[in-house]
């Protein structure tokens, strides 16, 4: 790796000051930054370690929302009773990001800032309508995650700015959520396709809430509003789910790459959306 300077600020303010300089980049868990630097995909003269700033690592409830500090590790999310109860698929996905070693170091803010089209937590956070609070020397601003992600490895973050926290409304008590992904093996994989789903039915079996987000099938993870609209307000059945799965397939714009062809990815979107919605609706298609 190239020669660099290493700084370990003790506060958010100091981190922002250090980052507001040419060639400064933040590092937290290092699980993306270090391999990228080693490959020469990432240049930095100074790495600013934000992982030890005390007030950036937490899961808590604020004003009815769940807020997660940006350097909260995947392990902390897996272990959080609040996330398990009110955003279960976020706990699930955090438990399959890399291996245990990656989960112990890798952070939620890092997974967002890395902005990989296949970033595992991103479809889940899109399905949660997550908002990011960004902080810099000149103050704070908030941005919907959907507006923050601009393309593969590209975000709306400005120089000298860090993600302070991610927040979202907890899912309703009666809502169910699920994260499914297909990869070329079971562990330690980069998703070929991933799907994050939320489904809530009312007492009459009609869809009260439905959210469908996809990973690895477009330059950024995407929400499929067309597919959601097919289900919302209607009594759920296999035919309706098939239509929603077809709409999700139509919304995907995948590429051919070393992991899978675009045509295969489109097909898998339909399969995973159908399978996941049936499972959440109790229409009995087992997941493998």
């Amino acid at each position, binding site marked *: *790796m*190239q*020669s*660099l*300077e*290493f700084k*370990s600020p003790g506060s958010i303010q100091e981190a922002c000051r250090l980052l507001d300089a040419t060639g400064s980049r933040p*590092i937290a*868990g*290092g*699980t993306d930054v*270090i*391999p990228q*630097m*080693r490959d020469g995909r990432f240049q930095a003269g100074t*790495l600013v*370690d934000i*992982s*030890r700033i005390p007030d950036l690592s937490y899961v808590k409830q604020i004003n009815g929302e769940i807020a997660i500090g940006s350097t909260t590790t995947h*392990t902390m999310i897996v272990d959080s009773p609040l996330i398990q109860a009110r955003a279960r698929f976020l706990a699930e996905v955090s*438990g399959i990001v*890399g*291996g*245990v*070693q*990656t989960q*112990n*170091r890798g952070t939620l803010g890092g997974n967002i800032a890395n902005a990989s089209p296949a970033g595992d937590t991103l479809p889940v956070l899109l399905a949660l309508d997550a908002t990011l609070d960004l902080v810099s020397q000149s103050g704070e601003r908030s941005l919907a995650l959907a507006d923050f992600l601009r393309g593969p490895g590209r975000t709306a973050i400005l120089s000298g700015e860090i993600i302070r926290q991610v927040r979202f409304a907890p899912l309703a008590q009666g809502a169910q959520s699920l994260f499914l992904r297909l990869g070329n093996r079971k*562990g*330690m994989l980069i998703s070929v396709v991933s799907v994050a789903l939320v489904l809530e039915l009312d007492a009459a079996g009609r869809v009260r809430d439905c959210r469908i987000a996809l990973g690895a099938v477009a330059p950024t993870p995407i929400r499929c509003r067309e597919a959601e609209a097919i289900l919302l307000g209607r009594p759920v059945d296999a035919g309706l789910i098939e239509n929603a799965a077809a709409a999700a397939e139509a919304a995907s714009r995948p590429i051919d790459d070393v992991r899978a062809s675009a045509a295969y990815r489109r097909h898998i979107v339909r399969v995973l959306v159908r399978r996941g919605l049936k499972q959440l609706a109790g229409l009995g298609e087992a997941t493998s």
Partner: protein
Amino acid sequence: MNEVTVTLTVNGQAHTVTTAAQKTLLYLLRDDLHLYGTKDGCREGECGACTVLLDGRPVNACLVLAGQADGREVVTIEGLAADDRLHPLQHAFIQAGAVQCGFCTPGLILSSVALLEQHPHPDDQQIRRALTGNLCRCTGYTKIIEAVKLAAGEMAMEVEHD
């Protein structure tokens, strides 16, 4: 060249090391402290051969910058045996024949140490999940899983005797 000065505890012993700022904990251990049990496999967090315990949790030493280990406690494979007595997991890996080329073994044993701290009686699924980030290209994992179970049994017996 930019340097960092790092004070850390490795296997119970305090060290202060001044080294290149871009160096990772893996090469601080190998080059500066001459602890060669932590292996350099993929250098990108895929293989787990460089697994060490950082404040008790398994991490890939290849993805931790030296400066990030400042003030931390590190345990490597060299820190497990007490005097001439192997750690029950080291002994169990030998007993079960869970070692072929041996390159992945230190990392697998450290991930297993952390697992058994948290879950003294793990089932197969817990063992498999704990070892997802440790690749072995020789054994097919069956004997490794047997070894972890064997060690869990041994350690439970030791606790009873204490």
